[in-house]
């Protein structure tokens, strides 16, 4: 082969290589777009809630309240009759069956919704006001255009009569779509139209805080000790190998550990962020120690020698020079470790975080769900409302992860730029 042919061959090889690279990147981007698109198109609707405007007369006599009732008094009052009466006025019904069908257009807790409205707007006592009440999941889906209304009646969950009501109300401009704050403030529910991730948001928050509090200091001290002070011998080699092994242990094994030791031996409360946090700390520790040690190792030895040579002690050289330089790597490692913990599902299922919890946890020792487990729970439900909420929860979870990863990248760049 002569020089010319060699040159051509080299160019061809380079072109081919670039082509492979481009193809892989394009494929990767397409997958991401596909994924985001699927989740987004399914989940978007969950951020909207369908409501129907209902006229309610907050007559204190009928409600058996004093004319300037306090919040406590209202809390204790029964709004059921008022609620039923207001709803039945919407459309003319004949017989109990039609009445029932009319009520079923709304979410079952309409009386509580009315009560909460009054508590928020106390000056509406003794007035006739319009309240927007949440519709049932089926009507919600119908209004969002996801409901197969062309099917014959016996194959639909919405009856012909309900369709009549719905169409009439739409004509009267009483059906509205509003931003679904319930999705963020409510706990879980059997009724998809009012189910929310409030509980799992708090659960995840408490869990991550506990994981951070437990794993960050331990990981930092462990990595500083191992990297800077520990003698290099068989024991430290053994520890090193095991840390790497632990980082690769499937997360469900840590769940078993939490189940056996934390719940079994120590009898800690089930389904709580406390247990979840401890379990996830065990899992996260090695995953934080590894990047921490790497960032300590990346500090050039000449910096250590420079400090030692002016008479700094070992601890001083590490604390004054090595650790500050390793901060960006350490922080971003920690954040990425926490982000992994945030998305972790399997170990939480084992420690009982799959329980159906309606109340929003106030402390880390209250039973609670967490975001990924909420996804898992809802994904098993058949109702369309849960399907869109599953995707919406994934969107929330993903946005947290993306924000955390951005913070990690930002911290690394910000601190590294400062001195070089």
């Amino acid at each position: 082969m002569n020089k010319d042919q060699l040159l051509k061959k080299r160019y061809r090889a380079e072109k081919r290589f670039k082509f492979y690279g481009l193809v892989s990147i394009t494929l990767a981007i397409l997958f991401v777009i596909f994924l985001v698109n699927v989740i987004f198109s399914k989940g978007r609707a969950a951020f909207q809630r369908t409501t129907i405007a209902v006229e309610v007369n907050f007559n204190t006599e009928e409600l058996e309240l004093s004319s300037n009732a306090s919040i406590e008094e209202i809390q204790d009052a029964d709004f059921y009759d008022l609620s039923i009466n207001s709803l039945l006025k919407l459309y003319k019904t004949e017989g109990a069956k039609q009445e029932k069908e009319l009520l079923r257009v709304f979410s079952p807790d309409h009386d509580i919704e009315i009560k909460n409205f009054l508590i928020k707007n106390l000056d509406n006592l003794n007035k006739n006001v319009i309240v927007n009440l949440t519709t049932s999941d089926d009507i919600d889906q119908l209004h969002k255009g996801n409901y197969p209304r062309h099917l014959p009646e016996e194959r639909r969950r919405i009856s012909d009569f309900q369709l009549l009501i719905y169409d009439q109300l739409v004509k009267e401009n009483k059906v509205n779509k509003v931003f679904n704050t319930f999705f963020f403030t409510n706990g879980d529910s059997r009724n998809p139209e009012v189910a929310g991730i409030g509980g799992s948001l708090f659960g995840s928050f408490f869990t991550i805080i506990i994981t951070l509090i437990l794993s960050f200091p331990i990981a930092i001290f462990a990595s500083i000790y191992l990297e800077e002070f520990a003698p290099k011998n068989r024991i430290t080699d053994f520890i090193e190998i095991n840390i790497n092994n632990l980082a690769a242990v499937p997360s469900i094994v840590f769940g078993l550990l939490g189940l056996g030791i934390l719940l079994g031996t120590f009898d800690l409360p089930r389904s709580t962020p406390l247990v979840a946090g401890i379990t996830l700390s065990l899992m996260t520790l090695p995953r934080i120690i590894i990047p921490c040690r790497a960032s300590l190792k990346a500090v050039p030895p000449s910096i250590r020698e420079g400090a030692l040579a002016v008479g700094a002690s070992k601890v001083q050289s590490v604390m004054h020079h090595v650790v500050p330089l390793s901060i960006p790597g350490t922080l971003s490692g920690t954040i990425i470790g926490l982000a992994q913990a945030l998305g972790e599902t399997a170990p939480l299922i084992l420690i009982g975080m799959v329980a159906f919890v309606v109340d929003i946890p106030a402390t880390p020792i209250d039973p609670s769900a967490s975001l990924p487990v909420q996804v898992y729970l809802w994904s098993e439900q058949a109702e369309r409302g849960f399907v869109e909420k599953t995707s919406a929860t994934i969107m929330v979870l993903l946005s947290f992860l993306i924000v955390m990863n951005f913070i990690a990248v930002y911290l690394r760049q910000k601190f590294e730029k400062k001195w070089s």
Partner: protein
Amino acid sequence: MINNKVKIKTTNLNVYYGDKQALNDVNLEIHSKEVTALIGPSGCGKSTYIRCINRMNDVIDICRVTGSIEIDGNEINKKEIDVVSLREKIGMVFQKPNPFPKSIYDNVSYGPNIHGLAENKVKMDEIVETSLKKAALWNEVKDRLNEPGTSLSGGQQQRLCIARAISVNPEVILMDEPCSALDPIATAKIEELMDELKKSYTIVIVTHSMSQAVRVSQRTGFFHLGKLIEVDTTEKIFKNPNNKMTQDYITGRFG
């Protein structure tokens, strides 16, 4: 000109890195307030030797040092010696400038700070200023003391490292090829500086440049394969060495 007070004396100094012997029975006297140059081919153990004097080899796990190292007649190669106060007395400048990634001011004030040499800010400013002046860097950096030390040029960084070394007022300064990364002008500045510094400090310098050894040092030691082959006044070594190997090395026949 030639000073006869011995500052550092090593007797039967042997150094091993694991099984490998890097220094072999080195007996060398370094005289007070003069510049001693150590020369020799690469890998002969010059760096290893000066790192023994401030016990920097302690940092290397596999390194073992036997024999005696005396400073002002006090043995320092023993466990009970506090290496921190030893290194306060014996400063070191490395081959590659290694300023801390902190401000110029903090680079110089770090040593005095950890040893509590300045009781207040005014005193510290004074130490920083005199150290930078002694290192002939003051005029270039006095307006930018808060800028990072790493933003200086290579030669300036090396002088900053010298200022850092003298900030704790050591008795000895060890320099391991301090000019190997510098251009001739920066080198000339540092050589000038050594002339000045030797009035108050004992200096040991490792160098690969024969001409530099001739210019700055009063005494020269020649190492080869871990052994000290010959040590004498610089004049004698370069004009009329006793050993054939020394002769060959300084005339560039090997190394």
